[in-house]
């Protein structure tokens, strides 16, 4: 018995060590980015590289002054939060209908929705560019929000979550005279909160990271998001490696902070969504 448990402890130690090494390897690029951002210019060109930086925070000041970053940040937030709000509403509505309601053509419509997932974004760039211009949406927040106001992933996930709910609770609600709207708001939505959180976070991250769309659909810094601003900075100052690292760091940091503060919900959301299966 004692031998078995000591072997077990040894094994778990081995497992933890292997895991820790992998985790460290995964973090190296991000660590390296940060270290470069506080290095002196000459040090990042050393071969072999100098690992300990000179803590030169001037790189941040230089990078920060080069572009209208506060504007980019504000734009990104406005766009991402709007996309999240729209997506949650459209997803729970459609997800509820597809999971629990019976209506003619529901299967066909669901296939239509699913097929949208198979449309590569690149196919849409040219026609939507023309659309954006003819509707006057070009170079506005709206062209960065409306096309993403519904999500196949969101509808799919909510349909999955909601169809796993026992039908008895809806039958009970019906006896109380509840209509579909109140069922959705009072029963389905609260039960789907973990999925909603997952969708919300996913959508937020997706919107924050989106690049090619806003890059082609906008013109002015007044509406451009952070990633496009970062690419512009890279295009213009590609040789200023330490400044670039600083810019990458401070544009990535908000996402990292958000991730750490909401991570519990994220993992919970992911787990309970999948867990709804059982």
């Amino acid at each position, binding site marked *: 018995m004692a031998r078995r448990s000591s072997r077990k402890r040894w094994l778990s130690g081995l497992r933890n060590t292997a895991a820790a090494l992998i985790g460290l390897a995964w973090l190296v690029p991000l660590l390296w980015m940060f270290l470069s951002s506080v290095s002196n210019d000459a040090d990042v060109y*050393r071969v072999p590289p100098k690992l300990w930086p000179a803590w030169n925070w001037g790189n941040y000041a230089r990078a920060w002054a080069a572009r209208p970053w506060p504007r980019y940040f504000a734009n990104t937030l406005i766009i991402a939060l709007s996309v999240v709000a729209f997506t949650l509403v459209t997803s729970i509505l459609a997800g509820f209908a597809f999971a629990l309601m019976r209506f003619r053509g529901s299967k066909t419509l669901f296939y239509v929705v699913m097929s949208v997932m198979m449309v590569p*974004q690149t196919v849409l760039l040219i026609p939507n560019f023309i659309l954006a211009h003819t509707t006057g949406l070009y170079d506005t927040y709206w062209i960065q929000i409306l096309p993403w106001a519904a999500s196949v992933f969101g509808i799919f996930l909510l349909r999955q979550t909601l169809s796993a709910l026992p039908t008895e609770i809806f039958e009970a609600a019906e006896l109380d005279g509840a209509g579909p709207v109140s069922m959705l708001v009072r029963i389905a939505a609260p039960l789907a909160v973990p999925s909603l959180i997952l969708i919300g976070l996913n959508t937020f991250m997706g919107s924050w990271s989106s690049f090619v769309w806003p890059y082609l659909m906008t013109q002015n810094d007044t509406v451009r998001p952070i990633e496009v601003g970062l690419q512009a900075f890279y295009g213009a100052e590609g040789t200023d490696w330490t400044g670039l690292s600083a810019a990458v760091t401070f544009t990535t940091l908000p996402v990292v902070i958000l991730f750490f503060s909401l991570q519990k919900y994220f993992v919970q959301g992911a787990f309970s969504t999948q867990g709804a299966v059982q």
Partner: protein
Amino acid sequence: MAQLLDPVATRSRSMRSGRPVKRALTSRWAYLFVLPALLVFLVFSIGPTIFAFALSLFNWNYLNAAMSKFVGLKNYVDLVKGTRDPSFWSTMWTSAQFVIPMVVGGTVISLLLALLLSGNSPVLYGVRTAVFLAHVTPFVGVSIVWVWLFNPRYGLVNAATALFGMAPRDWLGDPKTAMFAIVVFSLWHEVGFTLIIFLGGLTTLDKTLSEAAQIDRANKLQEIWYVILPQLRPYTIFVIVISTVFSLQAFTQFFVMTGGGPGFSTATLGFAVYQQAFIYRKTGYAAALAVVLFALTAVLSLLQLRASRNTGR
């Protein structure tokens, strides 16, 4: 058939009462509920896709639409014959060199990581966080970081390989290694997402089956192979579908890191559409490529779903 689209719903069938449900839920409200999402898709995805189909039948003058010529299927003929540069078939081969490692590598790595990292110890928790963190970092920023890591003269990758006595390489500038480098970066970025899905799957495992296996003195490998993997099948299929779709449509890393080069060695189908349309302005031909990309994505997804029906009872 609709249920086959998601294996998870299939498994929950036992929970359904089976008889027709609730009058309140059989209502016109349903159309109102699906309308907002459908409108968004119609205006910004489905309509434009049809428009793109139409474009593919033209020798489209991107700069002056009035000067476009209807050419019927010529763009598709060029495509099949491979007469454009780069030829369609070399683009397909390039795509395979990205998609296959991404799907196979991504699935295997995230599955192995999930098996290694599922558990309650703080170390495992921290490592899960680290891997997932990479996934949430925005693409443009970390692509730039990796361009620097792969720098032929000052990059960390060459510094690391030098420890093993390897000569420095121009990872992103050499047609032999550019795709490999991008795959490494993309796996680093994407595995976090599929890992979470597998970890979610692992929490749904039927504990009694594993206990039974242990009573039967099955070793850990046997338990994984015969007990855990079959239970994870729906998740595996989901991961395969999602990584196929993602990698077929990947764009930003190519845009930032190589611009599709050197040569066309990293111009996958998804990137080639952009390249032909926005760089070379062969809009009609680009639209034909886009139609192929669309068809390919659709066929692969449907094939995999069919596979899931056949194997998953």
